[in-house]
């Protein structure tokens, strides 16, 4: 227990320091950091509740990754170098394995680290909003909502890879914004950040294979639109670097990992089908079997309110059912409001927001077409687009634009 307490205190202190450093110029930072700490504590409590029956028997994916990580820790301790490690399912297990090898096997600690990463995601999301010149209040509200979304707490308080995926997505977009927006950045800084973006795309691909296409495709749209708008060569160089690196990842990492990617609904009636063509045709067959409109509906709106009590993990838990139902209602509301935010981004012809939208659309479409048709799965996979979607939840700016256009004035500046 003492070890757990030390981990919690350390991570709470670290999140406070990071918050202070990231928002040092902002007057409302203290309140925001207090909320972030509260969100972190809620995650810690949730972890304790989740593991009340013991860490070796609780969970599904989280339990599997924990077990794989233990094996990786054993390998590391027996002298196997990191690059020779044998691991299953996901590269995330290597990361947890390294943590276990250094600090000892402790699933609580691994879950706490995930919680901390999730808080960092909230920070960087807020930072993106601030850099996009959103009002301080709106930016902090976006970050706070993100950190307190109930499903987000569930996905990020266990030894699952979700926390890391959300963090990488937000960090890629944060760095991409920084490279373009920060004119004071020295060339070495730009090079490092571009390299960082490429590495993060690679790591994201290791976690979810199709992230390569969603991230690099959306970055391509952002950077090309920005280049067309401003003629800045940096955008073009950045864009070409990302493209070149993505091609490299496609022909190395993607091809190698396609067969083992467990989240794709492969046809297991054929054993030993290492042939990549077989796998691709299997994915293609899965996609062709789907009703595209219905799949998009499912991805964006499931679990329907009447489905919620049937979600296995929360069945018979009235409080959890009410929370999930409330979250779903708010999500629907957010979806409707975000339409106005999307239109505002188009009126402004904002390359960054259009790029983020391209990421949301491509990620949504891929998941709608390849995910299994189960509410819980859609619910979990959709979580990756919640953070970018929050950037669009604003109807006021669009209302001002359209009012100004019809009244004959110039449309409003970015709010």
């Amino acid at each position, binding site marked *: 227990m003492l070890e757990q307490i030390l981990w919690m205190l350390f991570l709470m202190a670290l999140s406070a320091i990071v918050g202070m450093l990231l928002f040092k110029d902002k007057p409302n930072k203290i309140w925001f950091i207090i909320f972030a700490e509260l969100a972190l504590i809620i995650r810690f409590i949730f972890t304790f509740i989740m593991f009340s029956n013991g860490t*070796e*028997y609780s969970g*599904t994916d989280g*339990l*599997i990754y924990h*077990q*794989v990580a233990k094996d990786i820790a054993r390998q590391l301790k027996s002298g196997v170098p990191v690059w020779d490690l044998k691991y*299953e399912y996901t590269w995330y297990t290597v990361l947890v394995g390294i943590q276990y090898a250094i600090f000892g096997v402790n699933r609580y600690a691994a879950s706490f680290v995930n919680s901390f990463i999730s808080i960092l995601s909230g920070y960087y999301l807020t930072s993106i909003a601030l850099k996009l010149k959103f009002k301080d209040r709106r930016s902090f509200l976006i970050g706070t909502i993100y950190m307190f979304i109930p499903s987000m707490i569930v996905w990020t308080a266990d030894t699952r890879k979700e926390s890391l995926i959300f963090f990488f997505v937000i960090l890629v977009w944060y760095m991409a914004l920084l490279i*373009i*927006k920060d*004119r004071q950045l020295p060339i070495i800084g730009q090079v490092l950040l571009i390299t960082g973006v490429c590495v993060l795309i690679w790591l994201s691909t290791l976690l979810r294979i199709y992230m390569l296409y969603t991230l690099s495709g959306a970055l391509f749209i952002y950077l090309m639109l920005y280049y067309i708008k*401003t*003629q*800045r060569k940096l955008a073009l160089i950045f864009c070409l670097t990302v493209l070149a690196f993505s091609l490299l990842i496609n022909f190395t990492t993607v091809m190698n990992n396609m067969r083992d990617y*467990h*989240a794709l*609904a*492969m*046809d*297991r*009636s054929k054993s030993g089908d290492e042939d990549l063509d077989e796998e691709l045709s299997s994915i293609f067959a*899965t996609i062709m*079997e789907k*009703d*595209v*409109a*219905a799949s*998009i*509906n499912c991805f*964006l*709106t499931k679990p*329907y*309110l*009447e*489905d919620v009590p*049937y979600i*296995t993990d929360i069945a018979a838990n009235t409080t959890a059912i009410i929370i999930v139902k409330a979250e779903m*209602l708010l999500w*629907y*509301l957010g*979806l*409707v*409001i975000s*339409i*106005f935010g*999307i*239109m505002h981004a*188009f*009126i402004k012809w904002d390359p960054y927001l259009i790029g983020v939208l391209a990421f949301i659309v491509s990620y949504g479409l891929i998941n709608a077409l390849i995910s*299994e*048709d*189960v*509410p*819980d*799965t859609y619910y979990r996979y959709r979580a990756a687009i919640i953070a970018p979607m929050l950037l669009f939840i604003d109807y006021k700016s669009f209302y001002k634009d*359209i009012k100004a*256009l*019809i009244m004959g004035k*110039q449309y409003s*500046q970015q709010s």
Partner: protein
Amino acid sequence: MKKKLIKILALTVVPFITILLMTVIGFAQPQYGYRISDYEVAVSIADNGELGVTEKVKYSFLGNSNNAVILIDKQDGEEIEIKKVYTQIKDKLIECEQLSAGQWDANVFNGTYSVLHENNLVRLKVYSTFKKQQGTVIVEYIVKNSVKRYRDIALFDRTFILEDWNGYASNIDIEIKLPKYTNAANIKSYLHGVLVGQKEVTDGRTIKYSIPNTVPGEYIETRIVFPENLVKNAKLTAFKNFMRTVLQEEKEYSESDKSHLLKARENAAKEAGKRAWNEKMTRKRKIFLTIFSIFTSVAGLLIMLRAHKELQTNQETECFELDDIPQLTPQEAHLLLSGKIGARGILAGLFGLASKGFIEPEFIIEGKSGSISFSITKNQDTEYLEASERYLLLLVREFADESGKFDIIKNIARIANAEDKEIIREKYSNLADRVKSDHLEKNKLTINQLYYRNLGLILGVVLFIAGCIISVAFSVISAYLMLPVGFVIFWYSLNVQRKTSYSIKRIKALMELKKMFSKSEKESKKIPEWLSDKNRLISYSIAIKAENKLHLLEKTLLGKDINIIEKTLEKTLTVLNDSLSAVLDN
């Protein structure tokens, strides 16, 4: 205060109610639960009273779950041991592995199962690559201590569809084999839990049950009485005769109130009716929304065409030739061509002022870099200048040094201070507003054009929003058509002023001028008289993005400095463009 409160209430309550309604109408799809289309059970009773059971369950719907659940009846004293679990994929049987803590290396995502022992049942969950919520599962298990042996009879009593299961099953066939043949007259079979179903002792060993279907609330309990010597190796349950008890129980069952079974059927019929109505409404709604989305998309495009036609009326009466270009300020010329002001608009505007004698340009060459400075002249009569020109002149005066010189790179491009950047941003914004305002003053829309513009803006937004909501909430693929159509109509209406006869004629003239600039030296070109002024020539060349073609004009216009001018202009534009985008970005 009251108004504000009403506004806040409206903003929160209205969307909430809308969403609630949408949730009920749009997203609500009936929860069907599990549906089994074929259920085959083969039971073989061993002489020790142990049962070997094979169940083949074909699910036509998995109740929106990623696993198939089979509930196995477990009575007091019974022990259930799962032997094999298979899933059937494309006529091939895939053997599943049991999932439990510690067995993490198993393929948990495909072809696995878990077993949960509850009070009076065993819950078997099978995970596999079930597609379209359908799948077939075969399970083999053993039930120990199942058959009860008494002094006079042996009793087989098992429930196959449990009362609490809450699913629908059809085509249920159960075949039970006794350990040995015996006289068929000694075998008595009973069926409980359903109103319709057949039982048959086919020979001296096999008993068959056939039930067409069950609904939630019904169950299938099979009971067989047979000679106790067939299970001679089974332990005696009680040293007493039991036949009379069985007969009494069966009498009680047959005389019991079965209204709950009738009620279950009634409820199922109601549920089926509701589901059929829902499906019918969904189909109707889909057809209606498909027609609606196609109709509104086409109507939207027709309105856009009508707006286009409206813009073209009286276009012939508008006349604007190459010689009329000086009526436009260079910054407006650039706005017409690109839709923005930017660095070009500013520099072109400055040379425009120079051509009118308000400022005097000077090309400064410092090694590899260069800049342009403007000196304020004595002519400051701004009466005939447009508002944007007056503002630009005001800015030159404001930023000029004591000697009256304004260096464009030094004053705009080399600013690092955040406060100064904010000032530049504000000034640029004011200048851009003035240029646009001057342009809009001249490029006024007629009442009809304005009507179509506003209609297009509103219709575009409505179509886009409807496209987003209908396509997602009601799964109507044709509704996605409204997204691009709505966007195109909105975009067209937003830029309608670029399509008026005023704009089209001027853009055409400016393009003609650009074409003339691009002609090679050898080609004959007739340069308009008004371009004989050096500053005016430079200003319009910048506005139409042809400053790098100046050398193609007759050298006499700009003399031997032509290359220096071209290079300085290029450098200045690059630096100015970068600085301006940096200022506007931050």
